[in-house]
């Protein structure tokens, strides 16, 4: 018999890392100790605790990681509150992968890539950034612009400062919204920083972050000469099924869960402004 798509499998949380005061990264394997399933960067999975609820998260680890899957999760609702208080060894349910993912093997191949993220928006981009690191020969120069409220709120800071900045042909620009005594780097909002770092407008840009950041960054990228068909973003709306049936996540005739979550901005512009 065919497997019912809404029925999940079981995963085990084998590591929990505190990234920021309200973001933790959870490492998950199946009951057999192996990675729960294969995915492509930008795809998502449904995690749940029976009795608490089920919620969709982007898979933050790269598909090139063959051992486990990681999810960077910000505490902001019922399921995430629960996840933030669990301990290593806790079992959860997991189903997926869902969505189209980034076109890493087609549109992005051979291109210079600019990744622009705000706050927890780094989670889906970390998957593709590490994928690009592991398949370095397939892609051109990489520029990363990442900002958050404060230096405490930079997700995955250890990996960024110890690994990404040392990667050949990687330029990493970090910024925080307001000065803090512990930060000696750039201060300012992401959309403004995008205009200051000297981006090459022939690159392909990938954005993820809060709607307000996306809105202003998009405008500034276009001012720099980026065309909408060079800019990709990933959306997140309320979902219950992730298979295009429960009726929540559509933007016009497209379902974020199965037609997205990754959209090219010129495609997004043809959809109703309801996201």
């Amino acid at each position: 018999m065919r497997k019912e798509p809404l029925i999940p499998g079981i995963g085990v949380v084998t590591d929990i890392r505190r990234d920021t005061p309200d973001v933790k990264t959870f490492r998950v394997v199946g009951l057999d100790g192996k990675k729960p399933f294969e995915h492509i960067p930008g795809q998502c999975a449904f995690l749940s605790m029976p009795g608490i609820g089920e919620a969709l998260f982007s898979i933050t680890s790269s598909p090139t990681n063959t051992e486990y899957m990681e999810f960077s999760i910000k505490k902001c609702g019922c399921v995430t509150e629960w996840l933030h208080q669990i301990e290593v060894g806790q079992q959860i349910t997991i189903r997926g992968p869902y969505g189209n993912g980034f076109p890493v093997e087609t549109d992005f191949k051979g291109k210079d890539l600019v990744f622009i993220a705000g706050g927890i928006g780094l989670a889906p981009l970390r998957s593709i950034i590490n994928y690009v690191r592991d398949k370095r020969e397939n892609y051109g120069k990489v520029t990363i612009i990442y900002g958050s409220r404060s230096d405490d709120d930079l997700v995955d800071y250890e990996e960024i400062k110890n690994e990404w900045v040392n990667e050949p042909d990687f330029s990493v620009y970090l910024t925080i919204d307001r000065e803090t005594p512990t930060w000696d780097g750039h201060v300012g909002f992401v959309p403004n920083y995008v205009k200051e770092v000297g981006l090459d407008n022939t690159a392909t840009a990938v954005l993820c972050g809060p709607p307000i950041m996306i809105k202003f960054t998009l405008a500034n990228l276009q001012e720099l000469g980026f065309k909408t068909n060079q800019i990709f973003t990933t959306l997140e709306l309320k979902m219950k099924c992730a298979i295009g049936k429960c009726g929540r996540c559509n933007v016009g005739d497209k379902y974020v869960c199965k037609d997205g979550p990754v959209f090219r901005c010129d495609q997004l512009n043809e959809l109703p402004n309801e996201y």
Partner: protein
Amino acid sequence: MMKISLKNLPELYSFIAKKNDLYLPIFKAGQVDFAKWDKDAIVDLNKLKTTKSAKDVFFPQSQDLVRFEVDGKKISIDEPIMPTNKQVIFGVKACDNRSFELLDMAFVEDYPDTFYEMRRANTTIVTLACAKPDEACFCKAYGIDAADPKGDVSTWIVDGYLHWMPNTDKGIELTTEVKDFFELDMDNSAVENQQSEIRAIIDRLPYSNIDLSKFTPDKLLELFNSPKWKALSEACLGCGTCTFVCPTCQCYDVKDFKTKTGVQRFKCWDSCMFADFTKCAHGNTRPSQMQRYRQRFMHKLVYFPSNHDGVYSCVGCGRCVQKCPQMLNIVKVIKTLGEDK
């Protein structure tokens, strides 16, 4: 064709119910809805429209998905209980019968819903022609023929007899099992006369020729951005009645229920008309009732056709026309937005 006297129907029901869950329009608590038949049930085949549509038979209002047991940090998943019973649904009208094809597009294409799929496979549909369509009916606008509903078996009630005609393998199988209850019916004229009468009534109904031509996927943005939605939706209470009586509304929720020994995860009908339907931790994409109202009709008239070869997700049953407490309905939307300019 075969026929059976209406007074012998209880024996037929009883026979079918031995091997199948038999669903019929049954009067209960002041209204007629499709429900499982038993010998005390008050069957009402004359009711033109059941209050709720027939979709529960395939897409129940609540469907258990799976049961979990939680023990400390450990979770176990019980084998799901699949709907294996054979079912017969008897007395389905042409509009509801068409709705099953639309639900198939929603639930069986891409990631098939196995519960729905099994129920569809296990069910034989016996349709019944609408002897007297009413003024809220507009199935004709969607090319549906209420005089000739093509279920696995088609039936017509004329002059004290139910006339019976199998159309599919499933229909022939059921017919073979029940043939002893029937007499041969060599003269089709009674049915043909009724069909002409039904079609004549339908031609005179006020909404039969409603113009859908403006609702095409290429007009998606134009229709979405129409300033008319505001006035159209102003009186909407967000009660969700339209979605619950609608044969094609498919939205659902997935919820957990803590039992004494574990957690039952189930799927249940939900409504895009409800304020918290799209609300999540980072906000709500459809915060106003206007947006929710627009979503429901855009889905039926534009989004669904865009994803399914131009097919509208409405069958013209008219339930929303009759049940909306504010007299808002799809006909009003079609007329208002379908007007020129």
